């Protein structure tokens, strides 16, 4: 591959303190380098915004859940049919895009790394097969732990060491990147048709609480030195009044000692759905101020928005009981999928309507969270694709963050509840380009522990996005121009190769799948495996030998070693 030179753009590289400086970025052999020679391909970025490639830390793009969504919603596909091109495969888009289209569309927005948010280990192969059919972007998947039999058992028994060994082993067996927890205890109770009602609810068959599950996994996570903190979907999602649960949950992680080199111990996902104040859907209002207040005072927490978009989208989470509730509330078609010994999931189409008071409050909550949490390094822009809305709406969300006018124009078309039940009308904050770079790439890469992503310092991966907007002359009133610029990158460079030009895919190389290889002392691992072998025979319907994901499923892999647990 030729060297490349991104020339003359306004560079935002917050991790390295670069804030709109006009400079060149040199790329060689897939990395950012000091400089390149004359034979390099020149990408003319004059007058444009240059950022590291986008890093999305929470999206549902691969595996049985999103595939159920695709299967369920031919009517969604027909809204967005994507013809094949000379080098691109055809497919469908909108809320449940096919895999090829997913890769293309992320790249077209200048994103170069995307994390699949929830992987049940029993169907990990499915996730990896789909990731292998998702072109261009680098990817990883987070392994579900919070309702796993072994987690619950070891927490019940207070067997911290075995839990640690188990987490390390299962991450390796599933080729996962992080510890994902969804409605801990609740999904287990759902296997009998029940739920759990908060942090101190009872996980019926184990006599433990969600609080214990979260604490144990967070401690193990930090002791193993995993690159990302626990990635947590709180109990009581979607229930007005739940902001209290969210704050209490964040507080649980406060007592956990973080791994070396970081202050954070928990990442809370799609907080919009968990930042509801009020007592029912009739009087729901924004709990964002309370959450923001807590986050601002507590540096151990990071969160992402789960921004709502007014459109017909598809909800899909590992929160089986929540999805059952949503079916009861809406009457929309409902798929539930329980996974033995491990996890659950549910998929229900949902339409967010601007004239619906509750939906408009939800819209407001997401934006409020982003504006009221002061530190952009700890709050990340997502829509929990596709739960809040398709990821292709990210540029709109960016506009809302960077332009008060964009917000007020949007709010004019909304139910007036937005004015009465959130404080958005009084919020004048506007994200800077640097803030935007943090919340969509630098901050997320740092939270994930992806040291070579999210920045453009020497040695970083050569993943660059160039957007056709001049940060020196742009004014927030020009938010539509911003949306357009971030919706169709002038250039996207992946691994040093130009993959998108003027919003069109010009190359579709295969990205890498990242996963974490964490280790514990050999003796401890042996003890664990004895237990795992026995339990598999008794309760699983697949042989242990057939369970771990084989190398064949990771043609291009990047392994991150976590050595914290080796001592």
């Amino acid at each position, binding site marked *: 591959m030729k060297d490349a030179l991104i020339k003359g753009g306004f560079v935002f590289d917050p991790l390295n303190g670069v804030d709109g400086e006009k400079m060149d970025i040199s790329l060689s052999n897939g990395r950012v380098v000091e400089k390149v020679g004359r034979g390099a391909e020149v990408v003319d970025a004059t007058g444009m915004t240059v950022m590291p490639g986008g890093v999305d830390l929470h999206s549902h793009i691969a595996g049985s859940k999103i595939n159920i969504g695709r299967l369920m919603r031919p009517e969604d596909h027909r809204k967005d049919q994507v013809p094949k091109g000379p080098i691109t495969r055809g*497919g469908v888009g909108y809320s449940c895009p*096919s895999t090829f289209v997913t890769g293309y569309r992320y790249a077209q927005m200048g994103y170069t790394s995307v994390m699949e948010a929830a992987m049940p280990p029993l169907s990990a192969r499915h996730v990896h097969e789909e990731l292998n059919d998702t072109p261009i972007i680098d990817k990883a998947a987070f392994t579900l732990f919070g309702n796993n039999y072994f987690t619950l058992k070891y927490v019940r028994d207070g067997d911290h060491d075995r839990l640690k060994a188990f987490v390390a082993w299962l991450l390796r067996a599933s080729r996962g990147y992080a510890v994902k927890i969804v409605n801990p205890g609740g999904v287990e109770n759902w296997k009998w048709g029940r739920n759990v009602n908060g942090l101190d609810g009872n996980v019926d068959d184990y006599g433990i609480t969600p609080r214990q599950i979260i604490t144990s996994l967070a401690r193990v996570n930090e002791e193993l030195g995993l690159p990302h903190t626990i990635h947590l979907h709180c109990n009581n999602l979607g229930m007005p009044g739940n902001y209290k649960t969210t704050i209490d949950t964040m507080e649980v992680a406060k007592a956990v000692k973080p791994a070396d080199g970081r202050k954070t111990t928990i990442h809370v996902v799609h907080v919009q759905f968990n930042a509801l104040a009020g007592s029912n859907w009739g009087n729901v209002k924004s709990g964002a101020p309370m959450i923001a207040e807590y986050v601002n005072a507590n540096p151990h927490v990071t969160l992402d928005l789960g921004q709502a978009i007014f459109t017909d989208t598809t909800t899909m989470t590992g929160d089986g009981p929540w999805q059952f509730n949503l079916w009861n509330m809406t009457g929309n078609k409902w*798929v*539930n999928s329980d996974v033995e010994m491990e996890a659950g999931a549910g998929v229900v189409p949902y339409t967010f309507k601007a004239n619906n008071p509750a939906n408009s409050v939800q819209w407001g909550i997401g934006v409020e969270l982003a504006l009221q949490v002061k530190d952009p390094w700890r709050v990340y822009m997502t829509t929990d694709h596709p739960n809040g809305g398709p990821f292709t709406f990210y540029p709109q969300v960016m506009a809302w963050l960077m332009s008060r006018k964009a917000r007020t124009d949007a709010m004019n078309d909304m139910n007036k509840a937005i004015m009465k039940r959130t404080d958005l009308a009084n919020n004048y904050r506007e994200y800077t380009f640097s803030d935007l770079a943090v919340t969509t790439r630098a901050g997320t890469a740092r939270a994930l522990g992806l040291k070579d992503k999210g920045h453009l310092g020497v040695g970083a991966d050569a993943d660059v996005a160039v957007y056709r907007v001049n940060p020196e002359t742009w004014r927030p009133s020009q938010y539509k121009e911003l949306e357009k610029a971030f919706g169709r990158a002038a250039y996207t460079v992946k691994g040093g190769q130009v993959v998108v030009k003027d919003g069109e895919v010009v190359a579709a190389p295969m990205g890498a799948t990242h996963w974490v290889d964490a280790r514990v002392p050999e003796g401890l691992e042996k003890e664990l495996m004895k237990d795992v072998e026995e339990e598999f025979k008794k*309760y699983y319907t697949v042989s242990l030998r057939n369970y771990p994901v084989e190398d064949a499923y990771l043609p291009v892999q990047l392994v991150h070693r976590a050595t914290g647990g080796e001592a």
Partner: protein
Amino acid sequence: MRYEDVVCPFCGCLCDDLEVSVEDGHITEVKNACGISRSKFMNHGANRLEHPMVDGKKASLDSAVKEAVDLLSKAERPLVYGLSSTECGAIGKAVEIAETMGGIIDNTSSVCHGPTILALQQVGESKASLGEIRNRADLVIFWGSNPTEAHLRHITRYSGMPKGMYVPEGRKGRKIIVVDVRETGSGKLADRFIKVRPGSDFELLQALRACVRGRELPAEEVAGVPMAEVKELADQMKEARFGIVFFGLGLTQSEGRHMNIDAAVGLVAELNRHTKFVLTPMRGHYNVAGANTVTTWQTGYPYAVDFSRGYPRYNPGEFTSVDLLSRGEVDATLVVASDPASNFPVDAATNLAKMPVVTLEQKTTPTTMMSKVAIPVATAGVEAEGTAYRMDGVPLRLKKLVEPPKGVHPDEEVLDMILKGLKEAKR
């Protein structure tokens, strides 16, 4: 050489506890397998297509591929069909072939559990993986399904006999009910057999749902079942701790098709308001679920996918193979891992005989007999590796235990040759 934990490539049970002994490159013994599985392993080498055939005459692989590429690229409306008895890599290639040709791709679910998918697209489905059933189910209902003839180890491995985490008594801890139009072997081993009038499953499912909801129905019987029994069954379902309905082609292939499944899904969803209840389709072939899964993630749609406009379109009834063939809308077909000439109604099969057909198959079948080009391929799960998806969506890796016969390649390789040829032809 003894292989353990071998995955069986026959039916949707995808049992993965087989033991296969191989000596001198031949399978000599199979343990833990059901009769059909044993037949597959022990007979995999019998009656094989020995070499590629073009127009009934022996041909080299290269010339057979060339002929295949030629006839497919000349076709105006080519169809790719089959795919349920091969592994996922091959299925992905088949999708790409259909896209490259601007043709149609369909798989055997269109004549099997396609209606289940149609129902899912209308109302959804509440399901659980087979281990959940094994560990928790105390009420197991087989509706329009006969596992003793089609999924031979299902009851032993998953749904009847095994001890589970919350069913430590095994079979004694479960009640098995069979609902069918005739008493089969499954009906005989059940705790209760309910005979339903043919074509009336829909009414019975809806009546049950009404009873679950507490509605009084002004009928003395429904679908040939006395009202008292209907109410009793509804109560039994409500009082189960964890109930499961396994349903089969009795529902998908009878009058009403997908509406029968729609009714079953609705009943189970209603039951979720009272207790824990799930349902699972008894997928027939070992990787028909994989055919749907791969096609869906790549195109957005599970079967009956048309690429003639350059983007995938989906319309069962329009792009499903039996319809296409019987209406004479296809002028060339690529068949992979299936035998439509045997499995389709005679009109559709007769029309298949009228057009040039390329078939990738292990043994002589009526389809290979009417094919212009027949290419022998390796048996996935015996002679070739790959992924297969169990009836509940769990993916397992098929193993390669022995070499395929000389000159015989895996489906994926041959399809790749055809794909490359088609892309060349387009240039």
